[in-house]
């Protein structure tokens, strides 16, 4: 009965051109305040992540180390090891987790919007399988893949991801148009092919299996500032492009033809979003492996909590993705301390029940 009412509810996408709070739920705060609160939540998560770890360092010392490093305040009264743990290991790890979480979440929101498919996530049209294949090729090749601090892994994963998406898009496009269903099917087929090639390479090179699988599972145990530097530019450009496309994404939720008639350059927006979101996802995957669930569920959670307007959905997804992955990584390095748990296991184990609870509680159309 309730479900029926939910389905019969007025389509929130109907008035896409209405004002700022068109799709806002009753009681939802104005956008600016929401964004400020989201930013505060991200900063709190960063501070929490940096202050907690298997090595117990007092919170005040963590704050003083950060103050000394960032602002040059205070004098050094702590062991050098603590400073290195905070500055070279925990902080880059927390920042990288936040950056990757934000990237996967806004890319997921963008893919879901552009493909008008609630099952879309940033890995759908080939990024994951392509990156996996690229990484595997480097890992099983006889050439050493690490040279000092430089590793061939991230570039190889990046190139693999970009190639796979390009092939999917190239195959799906004809006459200047890339229909959604064709694009998704091409992506699924390319992913299947790349995954099979990857499995074959793994099975033919047993001695490297553990290394490959450990990379695929993903995680932030090897995070460095260098990796943050690799992802940051792509995330910034991708995030800016998706944010700028938010209004178009709203209109696109109508029929594509209608959107075209309303003056939205559908194919150009699609290409821009796919290119920038895929590049950002590829960069994220190249340094953190394949972390599932974030790109799919975070945008849906944001929809349930804050509505369907992409101008709100995209920035809130970024913040929620960052907070979620920072906390998931904190759990990954804490629950079995001093051992690590793959972060993908944590995201699925903690995220799925939360999302299901939310789904039951709201009992309305999610997409």
């Amino acid at each position: 009965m309730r479900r029926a009412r939910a389905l019969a509810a007025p389509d929130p996408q109907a008035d896409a051109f209405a004002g700022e709070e068109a799709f806002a739920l009753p009681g939802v705060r104005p956008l600016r305040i929401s964004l400020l609160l989201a930013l505060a939540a991200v900063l709190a998560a960063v501070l929490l992540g940096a202050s907690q770890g298997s090595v117990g360092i007092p919170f005040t010392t963590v704050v003083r180390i950060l103050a000394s490093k960032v602002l040059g305040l205070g004098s050094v009264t702590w062991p050098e090891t603590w400073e290195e743990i905070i500055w070279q290991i925990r902080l880059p790890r927390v920042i990288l987790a936040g950056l990757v979480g934000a990237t996967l979440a806004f890319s997921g929101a963008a893919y879901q919007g552009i493909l008008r498919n609630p099952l879309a996530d940033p890995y759908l049209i080939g990024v994951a399988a392509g990156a996996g294949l690229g990484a595997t090729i480097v890992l099983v090749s006889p050439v050493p893949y690490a040279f000092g601090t430089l590793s061939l892994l991230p570039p190889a994963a990046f190139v693999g991801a970009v190639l796979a998406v390009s092939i999917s898009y190239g195959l799906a496009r004809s006459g200047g148009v890339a229909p959604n269903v064709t694009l998704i099917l091409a992506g699924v087929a390319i992913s299947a092919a790349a995954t099979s090639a990857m499995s074959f390479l793994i099975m033919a090179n047993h001695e490297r299996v553990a290394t490959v699988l450990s990379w695929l599972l993903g995680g932030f145990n090897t995070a460095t500032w260098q990796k943050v530097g690799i992802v940051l530019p792509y995330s910034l450009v991708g995030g800016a492009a998706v944010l700028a496309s938010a209004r178009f994404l709203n209109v696109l939720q109508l029929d594509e033809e209608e959107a075209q008639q309303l003056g939205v350059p559908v194919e150009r927006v699609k290409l821009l979003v796919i290119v920038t979101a895929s590049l950002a996802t590829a960069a994220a995957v190249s340094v953190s492996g394949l972390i599932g669930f974030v790109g799919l569920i975070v945008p849906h959670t944001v929809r349930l909590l804050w509505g369907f307007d992409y101008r709100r959905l995209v920035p809130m997804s970024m913040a929620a993705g960052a907070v979620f992955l920072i906390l998931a990584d904190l759990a990954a390095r804490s629950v079995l301390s001093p051992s690590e748990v793959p972060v993908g296991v944590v995201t699925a184990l903690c995220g799925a029940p939360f999302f299901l609870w939310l789904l039951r509680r709201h009992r309305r159309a999610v997409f």
Partner: protein
Amino acid sequence: MRRLPLLGILLALLLALTLVMAACGGEKEPAASPEPTAPATDFPLTVTRSDGRNLTIAEAPQRIASLSPAATEVLYAVGAGPQIVATDLQSDYPAEAENTTKLDAFQPNLEAIAGVEADLIIIASNQDDIVEALDRLGETVLFIEVPDTIDGVMGQVWLLARVSGHAEEGGRLAQEMKDRMRAVTDKLADVEEGPRVYHELDNTFFTVAPNSFVGDFYSLLKAHNIAEGAPTAYPQLSQEEILDRDPEVIILADADAGESAQTVKARPGWGVISAVKNDRIYVVDPNIVSRPGPRVADALEQLARVLYPEKFP
């Protein structure tokens, strides 16, 4: 995509499995380890497998298939080489093993294994329930998982010598190994507490805990393994934990992945670690150190030399 979390879990399981294999770790099952004082080879011989079932071997096997690189090394060392007809892909020592029929122990092919018509098949890892599948075919399968102690390794050396009909040579080999290892530990009699050590299996910081046979080397050598207290035999450590526990010696078993003293020194933050400051980072051959075969004595000697250079010049 619904498939991804599932894929992740599957990958996690596979990873756990392969790490166990790659590191030659085993379950907590007690390894089949008869007393070295048992009477010399008297077929028929009944032994207990790692799955708790008894196996009776009617007479000395003439066609042995070894799907364990460690067992292959033991068999050649006790003079059972001429009886070996097939070995697995990882069996690369001694060189003669390369000339036997090659089988895949990681993705076992039932038909290929049955096809070599062995009268004794030795398996260390029950991939895809291959042990049960071969049992059903009526094959003679000796399933012996990787032990978690050096004593367990010695037990398997003796067991393999007996089942292959080389009890006498096995006794000599075991005695020689024991003497060599005793010579090492005797020199450490006056050591109260050895250096703190971190043994790196791969560059995502998987390591060996004391309750693995590789970890047992460090217990014998009185070194303080920084992975002590980890919940599993082959745990993955947090980087911050490694920095905090400050190893005085770092042993790299992942040189084939490109890691070296230089790459370790270049890792951000690792400069505070004593082993890095004092240049005590050493590369070991994982095929010697991670294989529970006759070369554990070599491994113990090598590790003793890098942990106590002053005592083992």
